[in-house]
């Protein structure tokens, strides 16, 4: 126990109550606290309880003597100043007491002033000893290396930590100069500065690189203070040193990793930032500065991290940050970022809290400029829209199907009316069901090129919902979208094309036949004419008058045939080129038809066909070209005579029916086969009759039809194969 001297407890041990009272008074007057007991055992009890700082111990007491108490105190190392009080003044006894460890030996009667000095000294000394003991213990236990040198740097004291750290034992260094630790890594100026500092009486602080006994280097953080023995004179130096080698290593490692982090983050093309808990930016990597346009001075002056966003985004940023700190997932990291100069860009900003021992220190984040991605997305969207519009604008039906399953997945507008299905129906159909059943088993044309992943086009037929077969050319293309294999087919309706191709082929055939026919028809009369003229030229002197007349008649007749044939060909070619001009007038059809029949009558008679005429309907007037009407009559009646076998009959009847003139030509010939009725008015078409070849150009009826149409009339045919034909021509009546 330690108390200030003034409050020190002095234990008075005496068997005389008078002495105890007197001494207590004196001790109290001296400013101490007296505590008295009457025997040795009680005294030991107080000592072991630690209730006193010094003892006034009477030597001669009944029971345990003062000497025994002293011995107990010393032997048990209580370190209390004990002042022995004796009544005898025996010198031997006094010597024995001092030897045993008593502080002083006083004889009765006690001189008060002597007691005062003795107590004061004893207590001071005891306290000092105790302090030294404590400090020494502290020194010895301290992990800090301690060395004390004299003013010349010779070591006077080192603590165990010094030995442990440096490897030198106390014996090895006491009296040696402290510079045995010098590593040689510091300059002379460094040491000079150190010594000058401490020699001036100031404290030096710094880091040493020192050398251990075993040569190992170690870093030490040192505080070197001068110790003065009075106000001016320095007697010693105290060096307190801490081994910071490990600390320094980890500090270096930290610095290194920090540098690595800075360099790495500077390499990043994306801005990286850190913000403290007040929301100010504390760090930008190189890209951070360059992208946002801030300078380091801006950060030093305080840059609110919110300035990295446009004002309108800041509420969202705060909300997301708060959510992030609360451990929620942030779904949308997309913001409009703002540069120092006010320009903006779309960005993804990812951040994480900076935590130190679970305390929130700030945020760290990375900014991804997504301008290009946004542009690409927009372009993509625009393109998608463009393609969708294009898709639907294609005038042909388009079907897109899954290439693996054949399920229809997409179609354009045109496909709906073309196939006749509704969207809901198409969406659950297979592409094969767009084809007629007989080709469904084979891979439909739609897929044929799919295996080769190439474009292709095939002609095939499709089946509409209503059961119509349509000729189509299918162009197909293979493509992939979002990992799905697709095949696209564009269906072009080629039924019209097919029809016209067929028509063209038919026309070519008819034209070839026509040419063959015409050449035949031209050659026959020409041959007669040539033959007879050359005969006449050669034989004219031998021939009689009659024969010459006969031959000339034949030549004339053949020339006429040739002429009318040429006329037909010219007429049809005029009709073909649209160059015909009718000279229309109000005319009496009966007269025209009658005159047409005059030449036909001769032909009928030659062929032994009866020709009946009933043209006596009066007062008929039509508005027509007389030559054209005559040609109509000649061609139709001429045909009737031509196709009617010998002994047959042809009737021609003209009548009026309301506002219409009606010309009926009826024969009892073989009739026209059903399949040919529609075609007989087509150019060059000739009804084929097996085993028979009837003269003609195939132009008579086409000319008739053309003329009648040009006069707003009509022509109808009734025929039963084998039972004759009836042609009915109608012309509107003329109204003045």
């Amino acid at each position, binding site marked *: 126990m330690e108390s200030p001297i003034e409050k020190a407890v002095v234990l008075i041990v005496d068997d005389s109550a008078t002495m105890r009272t007197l001494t207590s008074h004196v001790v109290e007057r001296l400013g101490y606290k007296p505590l008295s007991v009457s025997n040795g055992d009680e005294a030991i009890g107080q000592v072991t309880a630690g209730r006193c700082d010094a003892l006034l111990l009477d030597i001669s007491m009944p029971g345990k003597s003062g000497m025994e108490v002293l011995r107990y105190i010393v032997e048990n190392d209580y370190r209390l100043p004990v002042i022995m009080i004796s009544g005898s003044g025996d010198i031997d006894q006094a010597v024995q007491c001092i030897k045993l460890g008593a502080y002083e030996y006083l004889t009765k009667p006690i001189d008060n002033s002597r007691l005062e000095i003795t107590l004061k000294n004893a207590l001071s000394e005891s306290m000092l000893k105790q302090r030294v003991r404590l400090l020494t213990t502290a020194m010895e236990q301290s992990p800090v290396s301690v060395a004390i040198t004299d003013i010349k740097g010779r070591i006077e004291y080192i603590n165990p930590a010094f030995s442990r750290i440096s490897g030198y034992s106390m014996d090895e260094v006491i009296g040696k100069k402290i510079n045995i630790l010098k590593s040689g890594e510091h300059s002379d100026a460094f040491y000079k500065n150190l010594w000058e500092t401490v020699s001036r009486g100031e404290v030096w602080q710094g880091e040493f690189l020192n050398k251990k006994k075993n040569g190992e280097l170690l870093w030490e953080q040192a505080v070197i203070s001068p110790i003065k023995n009075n106000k001016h004179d320095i007697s010693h130096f105290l060096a307190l040193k801490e081994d910071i080698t490990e600390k320094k290593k980890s500090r270096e490692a930290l610095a290194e990793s920090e540098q690595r982090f800075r360099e790495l983050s500077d390499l990043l093309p994306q801005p990286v930032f850190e913000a403290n808990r007040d929301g100010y930016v504390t760090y930008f990597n190189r890209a951070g500065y360059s992208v946002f346009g801030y300078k380091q001075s801006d950060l030093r002056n305080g840059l609110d991290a919110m300035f990295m966003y446009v004002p309108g985004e800041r509420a969202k940023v705060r909300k997301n940050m708060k959510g992030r700190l609360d451990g929620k997932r942030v779904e949308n990291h997309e913001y409009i970022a703002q540069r120092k100069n006010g320009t903006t860009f779309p960005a993804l900003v990812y951040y994480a809290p900076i935590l130190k021992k679970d305390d929130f220190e700030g945020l760290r984040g990375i900014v991804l400029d997504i301008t290009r991605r946004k542009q690409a997305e927009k372009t993509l969207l625009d393109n998608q829209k463009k393609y969708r519009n294009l898709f639907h604008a294609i005038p042909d039906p388009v079907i897109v199907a899954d290439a693996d399953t054949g399920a229809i997945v997409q179609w354009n507008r045109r496909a709906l009316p073309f196939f006749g299905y509704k969207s809901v129906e198409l969406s659950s159909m297979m592409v094969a069901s767009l084809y007629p059943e007989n080709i469904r088993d084979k891979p439909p044309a739609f897929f044929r090129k799919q295996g080769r992943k190439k474009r292709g086009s095939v002609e095939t037929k499709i089946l509409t919902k209503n059961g119509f077969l349509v000729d189509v050319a299918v162009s197909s293309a293979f493509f992939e979208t979002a990992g799905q294999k697709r095949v696209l087919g564009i269906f072009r309706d080629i039924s019209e094309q097919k029809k016209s191709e067929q028509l063209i082929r038919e026309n070519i055939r008819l034209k070839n036949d026509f040419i*063959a026919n015409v*050449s*035949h*028809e031209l*050659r*026959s*009369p*020409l*041959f*007669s004419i*040539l*033959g*007879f003229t*050359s*005969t006449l030229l050669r034989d004219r002197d031998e021939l009689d008058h009659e*024969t010459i007349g*006969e*031959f000339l008649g*034949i030549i004339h*007749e*053949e020339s006429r045939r040739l002429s009318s044939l040429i006329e037909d060909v010219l007429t049809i070619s005029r009709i073909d080129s649209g160059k015909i001009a009718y000279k229309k007038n109000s005319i009496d059809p009966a007269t025209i038809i009658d005159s047409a029949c005059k030449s036909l009558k001769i032909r009928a008679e030659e062929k032994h066909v009866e020709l009946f005429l009933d043209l006596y309907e009066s007062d008929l007037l039509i508005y027509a070209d007389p030559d054209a009407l005559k040609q109509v009559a000649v061609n139709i009646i001429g045909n009737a005579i031509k196709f009617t076998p010998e002994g047959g009959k042809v009737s021609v009847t003209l009548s009026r029916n309301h506002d219409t003139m009606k010309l009926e030509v009826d024969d009892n010939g073989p009739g026209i086969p059903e399949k040919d009725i529609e075609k007989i008015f087509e150019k060059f078409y000739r009804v084929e009759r097996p*085993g*028979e*070849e*009837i003269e003609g150009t195939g132009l008579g009826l086409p000319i008739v039809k053309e003329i009648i149409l040009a006069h707003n009339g009509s022509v109808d045919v009734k025929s039963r194969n084998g039972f004759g034909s009836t042609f009915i021509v109608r012309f509107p009546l003329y109204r003045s």
Partner: protein
Amino acid sequence: MRQSRILVVDDSPSIRRLLSHNLGKKFKVLLAENAQGALDLLDQGQMPDLMIVDVAMPGMDGFSFVDRIRKDSTYNAVPLIMLTARDKSGDKEKGLKLGADDYLTKPFDIDELGERIDRLLA
């Protein structure tokens, strides 16, 4: 020397007349206006030394007639010239294949026909 007999089968009266006049100077000319008429003449026992047959005729055409004649052992050796006004490729080959000995396309020179006849009768 017996006058050679030539049968002309042609539906055109003017050609029949032309040939009868020109060939008549040298030969005896038999005329038929169609194939059936010609067959009737042959059936009556008229045996020609040469036949001139037009291809394009109503009723049985020239090809059918030639085919029929050539399949008849009585007439298959009679020289036969086909006449045509048609210019269809293949007609000539068809005629020769069926058994015609010569083939002429209208218009031709009457003298040319005479030369061909002489060649076949020689």
